Structures are given as structure tokens and as C-alpha cells.
């Protein structure tokens, strides 16, 4: 089979970062030192080669892009200073922009200023839309009646709508990525669902991907030991990352529980509840976890604590900032809710909180957040391939 080379790929990739990769002469030192390049995997070397030569399909079908956690060992040991670690990050950005259909991701990655404007505008749109429906007269009521200020129905359906849009765009990207990966790896439907044995393999791969790796962060924890033991535990990347994930999922879970309680008629949304109440307890712990993770990440990028955080792009800042605003405003609302005299600013923080949270969800397929969708898919294929090697 003949592949036609895309002679413009390299120039395109450079717009996403990775300006140094031309210097790479495929010596393979990066592969040799990478703790994750096992089972005959030849990344980052091979993936860099795809980019140099112009093999777009191979690059977009490379699950190896997503098995990298950017510890930076390869960049430290690269004899040509081609910065393979940053290249892998760049290629992931390029992949996110290529998988999603709208071109928004490309704008965010390649034109950070315009991307920031878009981000602000989206948040402003959500805020203004809710404001048009808000009961401004309720601001001075004796209690902080947030869901009378902006009707809970509105927040609910806006949220559902956002999630549907996000899922539609996300599914599009995930399907494209899955097809690219399956084509490159030669994985067919029959291989994943054709027989009982295939289904068992797929289930095991899914558990490895979602359970062991995504939730458990096993390889990030055990193999990417770039920051051990020099890094104190409190700022080890895998732990900070895990706390961020767990915090985010915890908050998501708390929201679902709250909604479930409403459906069950036990507690209406917005009703004041004590701290020990399950959904609130979970939300508070998860929120603290998320805030810790995101704050340490922001500090690490600001202070360049690790090689992975030595280079930060607009999209890195965008995701962390949105997460941080969402988490922080959530706690501000907590304070406002339990303050003796309900402060007026509580309403405005509530508006900001909801708008940014909506934006965060809507933008998942277009920002760096997209890795949360794509990485599990790649890890699934990685687990399948490892199974085949065995």
C-alpha cells in the first residue's frame, strides 16, 4: 500500500508548537530512555518520524501519542535537543484539532489570543443568556435564593443542552480517532466484539484503560518516575493529576446525587443542607481535591517546577484557569450561602460559576480537556495490543 506524503504536515505542526523537531535524526535515545516505551513500542522516535516525513494518517492513528505523560526524560536526554516530549504534546494538540469537526480547537491552539477572546465570549454568552431570564428583583430577599435568581429549570436544561452538544462533538472526534487507531493497528469489529473471547479481551482492555490507568493512574504513578524521589509527594505530577481527576469526577457525582435526590422528591435543588449531607460532603471534599490539583498545576506551570511544565501554551492555561474559576467560585457560593446576611455578590459569583462551568463542559472536545476523551480510547487500544503481544 502506498501512502502519499503530506509535504505540508511539518509546517502545520509547527503552528501547534514543536519547532525543534527538525533536528531529530531518529537515533532512538528517547525511546530507550522512555519508561513507557515497552512491548516493542518505538515512541517517541517513530511518531516524530511520521511528522518529519509527512505521514498524517499514521500520526493521527498513533495511540502512542496518548500513552505519553510528558515526564520530559526524553527531552533531557535528546542529543539533538529536538525536545521529543514537547513534540508529543504538540502532536496531541494537532490530533485534538484534527479529530474535532468545527475547527475551533485549531483556533484555540494556533491563535491563543483569538482563542482567549472566544473563551471569554462563550462565558459571557452563557452569563448574559441566564441574566435575561433572571429575576433581578430577588437579589435582596432575606435568604440567598440562587435558584429563584436564575431558575433551576433553566440551569438544568441549559446544562443538559450543553452536555448534548459536548457529547455530539466529542463523539464525532472519538469515532474519528477510533477509526484511525483501528485502521493503523489493524483492529476490526470482530477483534473487539466478534466472539466471547473477543468480548472478554475488550472488557479487560476497557478495565485497564478506564479503571487501572485513567482512575488508578497506574503507569503514571509507577513508571513515570521522573519526579521521584526528588519531588516531594505533594507536588508529584501523578498525584496532583489524580486529585484533579478524582475531584472533578467527585463534583460530577455530587451533582448527579443532588439531581437524583430531587427526582426522588427527597430534597429540592438549592435547599440548604448541613455539611454532613452526602451530596454536600462529597462535593466539598471533591472540590477541595480539584482546587488543590489545579492550583498546584498552575503554580508548577508558573514556576516551571518540572520539565513537563517548562513550556506552557495558551491552551494549558485556558483549561486550568476555567477549572480553577469553576472550583473557586463554587466555594465562594458556599461561603455566601452560609453567611449570616446573604451578600449580593453571591448572586454574581453564582452567575459566573454556572457560566464558566457550562463553558468548561461545552468546550471539552476543543480544549486540552479533550485528552479526557481521547486518552482512554488510546489506552484501550494499547491494552488490546499488549494483550496481542502476549
Amino acid at each position, binding site marked *: 500500500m*502506498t*501512502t502519499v506524503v503530506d509535504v*505540508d504536515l511539518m509546517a502545520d505542526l509547527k503552528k501547534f508548537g514543536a519547532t525543534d523537531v527538525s533536528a531529530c535524526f531518529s537515533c532512538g535515545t528517547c525511546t530507550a530512555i522512555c519508561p513507557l516505551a515497552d512491548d516493542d513500542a518505538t515512541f517517541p522516535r517513530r511518531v516524530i518520524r511520521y511528522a518529519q516525513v509527512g505521514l498524517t494518517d499514521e500520526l493521527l492513528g498513533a495511540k502512542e501519542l496518548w500513552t505519553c505523560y510528558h515526564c520530559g526524560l526524553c527531552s533531557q536526554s535528546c542529543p539533538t535537543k529536538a525536545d521529543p516530549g514537547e513534540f508529543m504534546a504538540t502532536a496531541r494538540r494537532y490530533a485534538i484539532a484534527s479529530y474535532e469537526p468545527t475547527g475551533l480547537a485549531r483556533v484555540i491552539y494556533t491563535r491563543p489570543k483569538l482563542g482567549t477572546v472566544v473563551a471569554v465570549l462563550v462565558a459571557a454568552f452563557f452569563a448574559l443568556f441566564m441574566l435575561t431570564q433572571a429575576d433581578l428583583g430577588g437579589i435582596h430577599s432575606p435568604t440567598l435564593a440562587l435558584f429563584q435568581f436564575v431558575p433551576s429549570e433553566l440551569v438544568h436544561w441549559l446544562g443538559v443542552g450543553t452536555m448534548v452538544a459536548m457529547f455530539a462533538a466529542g463523539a464525532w472526534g472519538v469515532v474519528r480517532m477510533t477509526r484511525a487507531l483501528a485502521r493503523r493497528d489493524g483492529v476490526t469489529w470482530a477483534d473487539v466484539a466478534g466472539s466471547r473471547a473477543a468480548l472478554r479481551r475488550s472488557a479487560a482492555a476497557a478495565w485497564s484503560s478506564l479503571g487501572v490507568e485513567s482512575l488508578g493512574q497506574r503507569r503514571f504513578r509507577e513508571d513515570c518516575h521522573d519526579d521521584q524521589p526528588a519531588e516531594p509527594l505533594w507536588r508529584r505530577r501523578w498525584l496532583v493529576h489524580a486529585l484533579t481527576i478524582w475531584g472533578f469526577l467527585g463534583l460530577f457525582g455530587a451533582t448527579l446525587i443532588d439531581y437524583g435526590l430531587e427526582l426522588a422528591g427527597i430534597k429540592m435543588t438549592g435547599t440548604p443542607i448541613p455539611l454532613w449531607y452526602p451530596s454536600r460532603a462529597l462535593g466539598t471534599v471533591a472540590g477541595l481535591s480539584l482546587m488543590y490539583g489545579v492550583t498546584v498545576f498552575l503554580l508548577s506551570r508558573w514556576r516551571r517546577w518540572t520539565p513537563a511544565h517548562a513550556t506552557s501554551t495558551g491552551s494549558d492555561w485556558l483549561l486550568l484557569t476555567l477549572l480553577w474559576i469553576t472550583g473557586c467560585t463554587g466555594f465562594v457560593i458556599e461561603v455566601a450561602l452560609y453567611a449570616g446576611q446573604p451578600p449580593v455578590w453571591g448572586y454574581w459569583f453564582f452567575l459566573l460559576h454556572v457560566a464558566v462551568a457550562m463553558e468548561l463542559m461545552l468546550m471539552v472536545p476543543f480544549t486540552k480537556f479533550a485528552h479526557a476523551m481521547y486518552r482512554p480510547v488510546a489506552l484501550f487500544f494499547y491494552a488490546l495490543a499488549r494483550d496481542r503481544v502476549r
Partner: protein
Amino acid sequence: MSENPTAPGLPGDDEPGRRRIGVYICHCGGNISDYVDVARVRAAIADDPDVMVAETTLFACADGQQHTMVHDIQNQHLDGLVVASCSPKLHTTTFRGVSRRADLNPYAYTQVNIREQDSWAHTDDHEGATERAIALVKAGIAKTRLSTPLSPLRVETVPATMVVGGGVTGLRTAIGLADIGLSVIVVEREAELGGWLGRLGPTFPHDTPGRDQIAGLVAQIAQRPTITVLTDAELVGKTGSFGNYTAKVHVRGETTDELRQFQVGTFVIATGADVYSPEVGELGYGIDGVVTLHEFGTLVDEATGGALTWHGRRVRSIAYVYCVGNRQAEGNAYCSKFCCAATVHASIKVSKVDPSIRQFHLHRDVRAYGRYELLYTESRERGSVYLRYPDDAPPAIEQSADGRLAVTLVDALTGPDELTIPVDLVVLVTGMVPRQNEALTSLLKLPTGDDGFYNEIHPKLRPVETVVDGVMIAGACQGPKPANEAVSGGLAAVTQSAGILKRGFAELDPLVATVNEAACTGCGECLTTCPYDAISAYPCDTGQKALVSAANCKGCGGCVPVCPEDAIDLLGYTSAQMLAAIDGLADREPVA
């Protein structure tokens, strides 16, 4: 061995004609003594009445031992020396030196090889090896017994050198020769000096245009009155002997041709090479947009306005196909050495013209050796992509429907699937081929290798000398190479010429053929035998006689057995010496 026979014609023990020979048998640190009983060898010859000193030594070539030998020769008044050790190729010069330092004629020394020709060959048979060593040493003594003192031949030399070829090598060589005090005649076939380099723009590694390099050399030559430059000229005749040749040069004039003669001591042949010209159809050559490296170089040097264009169309991507006409299983098997660096350098020039041009180098190993590695690195950093294709599967080049070119290959690093690269220009990286110069080659009897380039005696030990005395080769006529290496060869030829010519005379080995005029019948058999044209006939009262030119004779001995009258003898290896040596080998009474 007390009954050792004496050579015929030599008087008995007490008579004054008896020789005083020193024999040294070397252990070679065990290389010999592990298999040959050297003490027995010594004992076997020690009683020879002509042997005054017989010793074994751990290393005959060691400094201390050499001193001992000099001491022995002087104190014992030795008049012959035999060292039984390794191959004469290794230490003949060493022990001739020992003789000379002890005021013994160097040609009274015989080296007997009991290592390569004995101990190493017979490690399984110590007894046989020892007997053989005894026989070889006896033969050596027998040969030495009949040795006569010889003196080196002295020939007067002409302090002038003819440089054939006016390219970069020839010109730089001429300057070097002039600066060392020799007069120079540069003979250039074309109307202009400069050769290939003179037509080039900026070259690797310093980006100095080839034209400027040549112009600089020509200007330096103009300042040196001892250099004569002949253009439109060819060397057509060479006569004479070592150090003093008459060269005939044919010079084409505007109206009339002229035949000029020059007396020169040496020749430096720097006739260069040609570039390989691909066949139509070879790797797409002939398709619009497929060019050779040489054609491409001109295109790049003439590019203006920040863009490279081909027939008015802007070039966006280029594929270079390396090793065209070189390193082929069928055809030219050699590597041309310069083309990798030249192509890498060209790609840097391209990226300086227009950095957005995508460049793909399809190679079979980039031999950008030494400092050219820096160019290779720079080209990669500027975005050139290097892809290695398999030796047996060269890239396929086709024209696509839109008029662009499609290059299909397997890249070793991403294979085994084929890749097709769409490009605007394909550059065939062509190497060098030997220049067609049959007239000169046969005139000078220059040895040519399988690849068609001239051969030196030894690529490392004698890199510019040829088997033809006084004729040196330098530059690309010897084999493909970059200009700087060609010039290095030229400078080596300068030193070599100076070594031969600066003393005003040369000393040649006296081991040459001589004719016994009384015995010569003038039959002429030997005249056609000599491969060096060293034998001529001269008339005398009784018809004609053969005459050997000592300066031309190489001492091969080819004429000796041809002579029906045994009138020719090879000095140092006379028939009498060889027969005596054979007797010694056989250890019996001498043949009559």
C-alpha cells in the same frame, strides 16, 4: 659440519681470499624460536670457515643488537653480513643501514627469511622447520660469499616538473612546486584553466564560489615567473630516464599548431574526473523536472528574488536521490565521496533562498564525514528530511497527471509500506566517472584500476607515486574526492617531487642488469623482453651489442634467462650467487 665445502675458486682456510661473514639468527621473540631450534641452526653453520661470527639473538632488529652487529663488523673486520629473521620486505633497509654504519658495503648483506617462509609455515614440524632453517641460512651464506661491493647509481635530475591538468589540483600543485624552488610547466587541454571547480558557484564547506577559488589560484600563478602555463595543450611524448625526461607538448594555436619540448624531472598527473551522466530513463532522467546535481547547482546559484523556480513555476518541494551511477552492484561500484556533502550543502543553499521549500533526501547512507557532519546537522535543522531507501530498491520517479513528480520509495524508518512524495523537482545526485584519457594513459603507461581511475602504488603508504618512475598522480584522476582532498594529494606530489629533484641528483639501487660485452653476440633477444625499455642496441665493430640503461632498469631479471649466451648478469643476484645459494640449500658439493 667441519667438512664444510668451500666455494669454487676460493682458496683454502689460511689464504687471504677467504671471506669473513657474520651470521645472526633471530628468535623473533619466539616467533621463530618456538618452532625452529635456533641453537642447532647456529651450530650447523658456526664451523663454516668463512663464518667469523655466528650468534643467536632475541630480536635482531632491536637497537642494542644493531649496535652489537656494528661493533662485531668493525672489530672482527667482517666483510659480509647474514641475518636470518623475517621477510626482507620488513628489514632489508634496517640491516643495510647497520652495514653502512659499520662501513660495510650494504650489498654485502643478505637477509634470510626463516619466519614467514619457515617457522610460521611449519608450526607442526619443529624438526623439519629446523632443517629448513639450516638450509636457508647456508644458502644465504653461500650467496654472501660471492657478493661484490656495489655503489648506488647516481643520476643527475632536472629541477622542473610538468603538471598535466589545470584544474584545482594542478594549479595548487604548480604553486607548491614553484614555492619549493622547482620550475613548473602546467599543461591544460582546454582553453581555460579551472576544470570543473572553475564552473561552480559557492561550494562546501566554506561557501566560497569555485570560480573565485580558481581565480585566486590563477592570480597566484601569475605572480610566479617560474610557472609556465600552456592551455589548449596536450602532453604527447615522453622520453628519457629517471629524473631527466624530455616531454613533448602539442599546443593548439589560433592559426598553427606547435610542438614544444621541455626537460623535466618529474610529472604530476592531475587530469581530474568527469561527472556521471545518467541514461535517459534512469531514475526518471529525461522527465521534465528531473535534473542532475550539477544542473541543480546552477539553478540554485542563479535563483533570485527569494524563490527557486523551474521553468517559471515556483518550486515548493524537492527530492534528492543519492548514489546515482555510484555504489551500484552493476556498474560503478565505488563511492564518489563528494556528492553527499555537495547535496547537503546545496540543500542549505536552497533553504537560504526559500526556507519554506520542503526537501527530502533519499539516500543509502549519508557519507557527510568529518566536518561535513556539521553541514548535515545544519540541513536537518533547516528542515531537510533524510530517508534511507533499500540498496536493491531505488526510488521510482514518475510524472503525475498534474505535471508534478511523484517519488515512490520505502523508508527504512517507517517501512515496509511504500511512500509517495509529491515534489516539483527531483535531483539525481550524480557522482564522478573516470575521464576518458586513453592517449595519455598509454603514453605514460599509467596503471588503471577496475574502476577506470589511475592507481597509486599504495593508497596509504605511497599515495601519489605510481609504478612508473617519476610520474605521480594527484586529485580526482586517482579516484573521486572533494576538492580539498584532491589538493592534499597535489601537495603530497609536490613533496615527493621535491624529494626526488631538489638534491640535483638521485641515487638508484645498483641491483641492475649488466651485459658482458665479450659474451654478447648482439642477437637482440633481450631487447624485446624488457618491460621498461631499458635495453638498447649499439653498433660496434662486430655488429651490435646490447646496452642496459641503469637508470631505467628495475632489476627484475627478466632478461637474464632469455640470453642464450648467459651474457647478462643481475648485480647482487648474479648467476654464480644464485647457483651457490642453491647448492647451499641442497647442502652438497657445488655444481660445476
